[in-house]
Every structure is written in C-alpha cells, then in structure tokens.
C-alpha cells in the first residue's frame, strides 16, 4: 500500500540517529512483508569528508545499512496494533509502544553486488521484500535504484531481538 512515513515516525520505529539514520521516507509498505523507501544523498553527509576527499562516493556498506533500516521499518510496522491506519501514521500512532527498542540485528549479507557509484544528488529508491523466516531469522531480498537503475542488490538476513 502507498504510505508516507516521514522521519518523525521513522525515528519512532528505529533507534538510529544522526549521523546514522540513513532513510528519509517510506513510501510503500506491507507490514512484515515488503517496503519501499527513499534516501536522499547530499554533499552534507559527514562520511564524504573522508570517502573520498575530492571524490564523494557513498560507501557500499552504508547503502546496505539504508536497506537494513528500511527492513527494520517493515518489521516494526508489523508490530503495531491491529487496525493501525498505515496510510496516515503520525507520531501519536506510537504512543506507549516501544518499537525502536525492539529492532534486531543484521545476521548475514549474501550475494551483494554494488553495480554503480552513488554520489551527492542521487535519490536512492530502496526496496525490501521478505523471502523466508525461520525462528528469529528472516531473509530479505533487497535492492536500491537511482534513476531506475539498480545500484546495489543482494540478500540480507536479519534477526529479531529474542
């Protein structure tokens, strides 16, 4: 379903903060199943100081982190009470619910390819689709596009907090 989950709500769902909150908006969401989000890359990103001087390129591991954070939002949404209106989420939808504290960890990355460079000015369109789950572990197919072209793709395994 189409949604518009902005940073206010995202920060209710993720414990990540500056300089490590690497997702700006979630635009499509099927709680626990799939999600699409956006990360805008600007020259103000702190890591461009060193990666690399004179040649700003988003580190590949941070592209994966963006995708992992999208995955965490996808899972967090599944933990919201039944009847939650996802199309109109606001910060009050989270009152009394601690989702950020329940975000799990990255357990494995697999078959990841970085297919082209991501630079300031690029808008990353992030995609995550859950494949299978076994116990606390789930496998998620992820990819990101810039201008319709895939820049990173792979499979990540995430664990839920026991």
């Amino acid at each position, binding site marked *: 379903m189409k949604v518009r989950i902005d940073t206010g709500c995202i920060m209710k769902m993720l414990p990540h903060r500056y300089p490590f909150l690497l997702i700006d908006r979630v635009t499509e969401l099927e709680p626990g199943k799939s999600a699409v989000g956006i990360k805008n890359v600007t020259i103000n990103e702190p890591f461009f100081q060193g990666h690399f001087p004179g040649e700003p390129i988003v580190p590949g591991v941070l592209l994966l982190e963006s995708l992992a954070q999208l995955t965490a939002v996808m899972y967090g949404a599944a933990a919201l009470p039944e009847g939650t209106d996802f199309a109109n989420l606001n910060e009050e939808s989270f009152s009394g619910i601690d989702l950020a504290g329940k975000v799990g960890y990255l*357990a*494995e990355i697999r078959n990841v390819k970085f297919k082209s460079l991501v630079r300031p000015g690029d808008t990353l369109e992030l995609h995550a*689709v*859950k*494949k*299978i789950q*076994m*116990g606390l*572990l*789930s*496998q998620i*197919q992820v990819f990101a596009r810039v201008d319709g072209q895939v820049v990173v793709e792979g499979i990540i*395994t995430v664990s839920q907090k026991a």
Partner: protein
Amino acid sequence: MAVSGKEQVTAYAEKKRQVCKDLKQMVVDQLCLDLDPEFITNDQPLFGRGLELDSIDSLELSVGVFNLYQISLSDDDKAVLSSINSLAEYVMEHQAKDASDGGADLSGGMDLG
C-alpha cells in the same frame, strides 16, 4: 504388477542414495562450503561439531531444500536438519505423501516470491 519386497527395498535404497547425494551437493552449493560433497557422511552432525553449521546456515538450508524439492521446513522441523540422513528421510517421506495426495503442492507454506 507385483513388486517383490526385495525389489522395493532396493528401489528405496537407490532412491535414498540419490537424495543424499543431491542434498550434499545442495549443502555445499548453498553454503558456499569449500568442501567436496562426498566428504560429508550421511550421519555426520551438520551443526555443532561435525560440519559446524549455525542457525543462519539452517535458514539457508531450508531455502536450498525448498528450491530442490519444493518442501518448506518450519521452525518445528529444525531437528530434521541434524544430518543428511534425517533430511533425506524427511524429503522422501514428504515425496511419498505428496504422491499419494495426487501430486506435490507447489504453493507450499513458504513464500519465496
């Protein structure tokens, strides 16, 4: 057609040998093990001592089993992954059941997109 007990046993053994062989190849491929599949014995523990696999690998194995046989393993079936033998028996049991149900149910419980 009357099939003697002995032929049945031989056919079963032959089938199981093949399933074990396929499973070993799948384990090595799926987990990118630097290992000759023949090196894995049928009753060797896959987890802990033995092949030293872990829970992340078990998720990967369930993907492999699904790709190979369209059988989905759930949390409750984890014991099945203890050795190639137990996995082969589980697979054959399922195939026999699916055959008597009139064909495999490819939809399965597992959503593989």
